[in-house]
């Protein structure tokens, strides 16, 4: 069993005193060779100014796009329709490109690419509340305070990403700063014990990142120069105090230069109008397109969210009638695009929320939270299409076959991405943690090879 090496962080995400990077910078700095050392960096402007790195980074290795359907969508109106039953709701089911597999009539476009999609109809998890659900379904495991398990995107970025790449490896696109429990979740610690450098770069809203451009009066050289001095002083404080807060602060500064060089990647106006029309003009759709663009240009993990729109406790059918077709088109466009660009085999696309919705309706004609039996879908990456895993009873109350919990789901995702699910984290002074705990088996039926 290979052991994850953390050269720069110890268990709690702190930088170790005398990390290699720290030494290099300090040496360069103290030798007065900072200016010459930075000359090569200072010569780049705009995207991919270090061509060697850029070409390597692009299109290499496995990537992942997580369409995060926060609030929790209804399985009945998507992947596990129960037409004509008392729980099924008003919408019908339609046939797909795979004989015998039916999905909701609200998803006609996905029906045509069923051969690319793997659907799990037997998700069965514990938390029934948003915050706890989001926690378990994005980290893969229940919390064990005071330790914070890193979120999926951080793990994938750490395992498959290039930390030195100027292109952010883990991006969260979310236009909506609000979103109830998701809002509080976003304010928490995402990268956990991996350390803040593996946390997401957040963008969204007006599709650009504020202050991504250097003040005009400041030369590029000065901008780089003063940062080296800042880093030297700030790292010293971090190391002397063993301060996690300072480590996170310094890690965020580490990203500034790289991110500035990537400004054009976050400018949606730079994308083709035809593509933007094709995906649809909603924020979620536009961000899904931006996710494709980021993955094409070297990001490793992009999570697309949009507040908590799926939490339809009220008028569930009317709401889903708007939300599901948008998702249907986005998934179709994204998977088709990735395939046309020869990227689908390396890019895993996941569409899921934190749980499903109740078979019954509440008084407000909403469906409430339901984690006992729900569905999700995946495509690309190491995933076999045209497969449905598990099933629920005729009314959708219980999983009757092949129940999949969060651990098995994460084992499957990691396996599909070529990451060892059983690997143990190397965390000095901390209890033993594995990437996936227990003896969780990946879902073999949907894995290629």
């Amino acid at each position, binding site marked *: 069993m290979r052991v994850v090496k953390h050269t720069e962080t110890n268990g709690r995400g702190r930088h170790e005193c005398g990390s290699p990077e720290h030494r290099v910078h300090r040496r360069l700095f103290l030798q007065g060779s900072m200016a010459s050392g930075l000359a090569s960096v200072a010569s780049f402007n705009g995207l991919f100014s270090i061509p060697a790195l850029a070409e390597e980074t692009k299109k290499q290795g496995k990537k992942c796009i997580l369409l995060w359907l926060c609030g929790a969508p209804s399985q009945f109106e998507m992947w596990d329709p129960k037409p004509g039953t008392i729980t099924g709701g008003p919408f019908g089911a339609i046939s797909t490109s795979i004989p015998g597999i039916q999905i909701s009539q609200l998803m006609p476009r996905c029906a045509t690419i069923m051969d690319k999609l793997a659907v799990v109809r037997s998700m069965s998890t514990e938390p029934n509340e948003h915050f706890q659900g989001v926690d378990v379904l994005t980290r893969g495991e229940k919390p064990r305070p005071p330790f914070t398990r890193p979120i999926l995107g951080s793990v994938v970025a750490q395992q498959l990403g290039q930390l030195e790449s100027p292109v952010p490896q883990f991006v969260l696109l979310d236009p909506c700063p609000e979103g109830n429990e998701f809002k509080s979740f976003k304010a928490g610690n995402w990268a956990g014990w991996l350390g803040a450098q593996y946390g997401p770069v957040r963008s969204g809203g007006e599709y650009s990142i504020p*202050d991504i451009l250097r003040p005009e009066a400041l030369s590029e050289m000065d901008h780089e120069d003063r940062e080296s001095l800042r880093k030297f002083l700030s790292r010293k404080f971090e190391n002397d105090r063993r301060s996690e807060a300072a480590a996170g602060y310094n890690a965020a500064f580490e990203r500034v230069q790289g991110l500035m060089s990537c400004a054009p990647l976050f400018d949606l106006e730079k994308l083709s109008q035809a593509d933007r029309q094709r995906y649809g003009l909603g924020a979620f759709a536009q961000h899904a397109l931006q996710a494709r663009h980021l993955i094409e240009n070297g990001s490793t993990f992009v999570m697309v969210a949009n507040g908590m729109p799926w939490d339809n406790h009220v008028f569930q059918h009317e709401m889903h009638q708007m939300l599901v077709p948008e998702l249907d088109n986005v998934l179709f466009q994204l998977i088709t695009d990735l395939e046309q660009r020869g990227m689908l085999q390396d890019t895993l696309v996941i569409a899921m929320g934190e749980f499903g919705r109740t078979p019954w309706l509440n008084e407000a004609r909403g469906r409430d939270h339901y984690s006992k039996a729900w569905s999700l879908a995946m495509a690309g990456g190491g995933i076999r299409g045209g497969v449905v895993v598990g099933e629920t009873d005729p009314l959708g109350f219980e999983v009757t076959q092949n129940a999949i919990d969060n651990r098995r789901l994460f084992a499957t995702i990691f396996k599909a991405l070529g990451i060892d699910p059983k690997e143990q984290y190397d965390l000095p002074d901390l209890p033993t943690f594995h990437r996936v705990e227990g003896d969780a088996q990946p879902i073999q039926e949907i894995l290629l090879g």
Partner: protein
Amino acid sequence: MPQRRTFESLPFLALVFTAGLLVPQCAHAQESEVTAGSTDMAVRIDREIAAGYSKHGIEPASLCSDEEFVRRVYLDLAGRIPTVAERVSFIEDVSPDKRLACIDRLLASEDYVQNFTDTFDSILMGRGNRGKVAERQKLWRPYLENVFRNNRPWDQVAREILLARPDSPDQAGAVWYLFERQDNAQAIAEAVAPAFFGIRIDCAQCHDHMIASEIRQQHYWGLVAFFNRSKNQKTDAGPRISESAIGGFSEFANIHGASSPNILTFYASKTVEEPRPEKDAKQEDIDELYQAPLPPNEPRVPKFSRRTKFVDEILSGHPMFAKAFVNRVWAQLMGRGIVHPFDQMDSMHDPSHPELLDGLANDFIASGYDVRNLVRGIVASRAYQLSSIRPQGVDDPALFAWSIERSLTAEQLARSIQIALQQRVENDHPMLPELRERMPDVMPETIVTDVGDTLFLANNPKMHQVILEGSQKDGLIARLALQADPKGAIDDLFIAILGRHPDDAESEAVLEFIQRSGTADSFEGKISRWQNVVWAVLTSAEFRFNH
């Protein structure tokens, strides 16, 4: 606690109000020891906290130096770093009780008023202002300032805010708490629970809290019901909250579809009896249901007022009220609550030091809800005055064995940057609104720095402008550039910004930076180099945190 059943007992309220204006008692016999044991409350804190160390067999960090203390206590009480002169005068003071003297001086300062107003404004109203900046500034802010300037008893303040029927012009601003929430009784309930009772009830909207099961769906809708007859009303005297004598009865459904009436009840409290009309009975909103005589300019008050019932029978004497306040002020000053997070004081979150929490809450009640006395007790404790260097082998922050670092709030940062560069403060510096928006966190559960924060510090034009201001006459950068001896300048730089002398490595690094070949030796050249140095020190983690 005074029980005020009806609206008419004005003289009594006036008496209480006057009492609130009295200067808090602070003349304890001073011990000669520099810090610990300076107040009764501090003694209690240190006894309980030390018991925790023994129980876990750990050694806490040592007492912090005067240099560390003066920066920390200025940030916590005055909301800014000390000026160079304030720092020197404290450090050179040889009197044994100078730390307590400094605490008392700051508690009596206008800086304390502004700083605590900022913090409580964020806690009570949130950072978003729903587009009502001007009115909030005009009404709410002066009210809060008055609360902290006159050290008004917290139980009275809470009562005024939640009853929202001002007896005097001084109280007029209190109505803004409800008014800004624009008749949204659910938003009011969701804000009141954490702010005054230290619990979050949002999860209980649709069902009993799944994890902290003592928080029931009934508590959510009960709290909503206390406010669901209230309506914003604009009067000649300003915004008011009217209350209807009828309506506000409904049923709420749980996830299984079963419905229950929204009776007047709340968590860890009793149920207020209220006659409930038959389902289809029509109620008439007649004058007899209201107190007579009808006030000329004020909204009429129902004889059975749900808000009055709430402050008299739920808020008054509620077991969480004092604890929630004490825990929050503790979190503000100590980096985390005795219950953490400070606004989830439920069965899922046990206090790290239960006896201490109870003891502080009782002391707070016994003092007449004296906020300044509470703050004073905490910062006078040895636990507050520990070094921020974490002892080897100690990892659990809940032991309070070292001083936990905290991010400067937007306001603290804006003021401290000005002090560092100008030795003076404008409270409405143009940088502040943007900083508030971009770095809104006040007492976050975990300190997380977003790359957006660092982009702001690196590139924001207003941040750049501040550096330019510091380069003008009398500014730090201009003074540094004029200094003939670079070593002396570097020392001044560290004192002005970080409140300490540089060590050799730091001194050497900065010297090398400013003397690098290839940069013109003109005054402008010097200014430009010092601008970069000052930016680098201002944006170092050491400046960003209170430690």
